[in-house]
Structure formats: C-alpha cells, structure tokens
C-alpha cells in the first residue's frame, strides 16, 4: 500500500485507468479516517484532544494499491481534479437509448423539412455577426 500526496495519487490513478482499458477493474474507496490507530484515538478522546479527521482515498487495479489522505483544506481541489480524471476515462458507459431513438426519428423529419432547417440556419448565421 503506497501512501502518496494528492497530486501524484491522481497521476498514478490516471495511469491505472489507461492500463485497464482492455481488461481489468479499477476500485476507488473513500473512507473517513483520523489516520491514527485505535489506541492513540482512545487516548486522545480521554484526554479531551480534538481528533482531526481526514478523507482516505484508496485506488487499486487488483494488483497495485495506492492511497492518499485529504484534509479539509485540500479536498475541494482534489475533488475537482478527481472528477476530471473520471470524466476523461469513464467513457465506455452507454449513452441514453431514448435519445438514440429520437435521433433515428429526427433525421426522417429533417429530410422532409430540410428547407425549413436551412432557413433556420441562415437566420442563426445572420444573428452571429450582429453579436
């Protein structure tokens, strides 16, 4: 289990996604953790010290595991970069079937009313230079 800083973690996660396109899975786990063992936590509770919790993020491709821990200050930036990484790589999922059905219907309509569509396009093109 390799504990990394948030940015190297994201880089390594990206490589994991790239390596697992043909076969394999990626698991990402989010857990709240104080990063301290139970004994230390109990001592801190009894002595009245506030325990600082962090978000532990782990990722694995079944063979290698990486992890990072986020504090209250760094988690928002990480969450934005993490969302970008996921969006970039999770593109094997199916898109909505209903829209596909509409698309198969729409071109038939477009062929019938192609003149009206071209007139609409001319209207739009006149609007653009005026802006």
């Amino acid at each position, binding site marked *: 289990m390799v504990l990394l800083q948030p940015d190297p973690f994201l880089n390594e996660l990206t490589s994991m996604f790239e390596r697992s396109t*043909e076969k394999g899975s990626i698991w990402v*786990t989010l*857990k709240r953790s104080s990063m301290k063992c139970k004994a230390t936590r109990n001592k801190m509770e009894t002595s009245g010290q506030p325990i600082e919790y962090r*978000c532990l993020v782990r990722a694995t491709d079944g063979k290698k595991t990486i992890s990072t821990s986020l504090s209250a200050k760094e*988690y928002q930036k990480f969450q934005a970069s993490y969302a970008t990484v996921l969006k970039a790589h999770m593109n094997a999922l199916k898109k909505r079937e209903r829209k596909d059905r509409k698309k198969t219907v729409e071109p038939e309509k477009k062929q019938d009313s192609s003149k009206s569509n071209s007139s609409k396009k001319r209207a739009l093109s006149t609007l653009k230079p005026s802006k």
Partner: protein
Amino acid sequence: MVYIESWDEFVDRSLQLFRADPQSSRYVMKYRHCDGKLVLKVTDNRECLKFKTDQAQDAKKMEKLNNIFFTLMVRGPDADISEASSKEQMEQQASKKGRGRRQ
C-alpha cells in the same frame, strides 16, 4: 448484497447509513472499462447497499455523490452538503483572484 434500482433511493439510504456510523462506513466504486460497467457500494460492515449501471448519465450523478461524500468525510457527518455551497466557494475564490488583478 442489496442492489438498489432507484438512484435516489440509493443516495438517501447510503447517506443515512454513513451518518449513522461515519467511523466504519465506506464508499467504494468499481469501474470496468472492458465491460462498460460501474458499481457503487456503501457499507458499514453490517449492512451493504449497492448500485450497478452501464449508463453514462449515472456517471454524472455519481460525480455529485462523490462530492457529497468528500464533504461529509472531511468535514464530518453533520456538515452542510448543499451543492450550492461548493459552487459559491469556487465563485468566491474566482472573485478574489479578480480583485487582485484589478489592483
């Protein structure tokens, strides 16, 4: 393993589960590019809630859920998780940068 059909029900029950035991609850995501499948799991090691999908629209919903879980885990189970608050903070940061450039 309980697979939940409705996304909203999955979100409600998983947030409930997390808030009841934030110390032992965890949120797991499994993605298989070769099969085009995404599975989400929230468990406290007693009860387990799962959601599986192959739809791209659910990936977008999952991103919002990711943000909610990040906020809850770092700030605590009682944190305010309105999505607007995170967007407002980003806008505030952008406006602060703007003021700096104008000066």
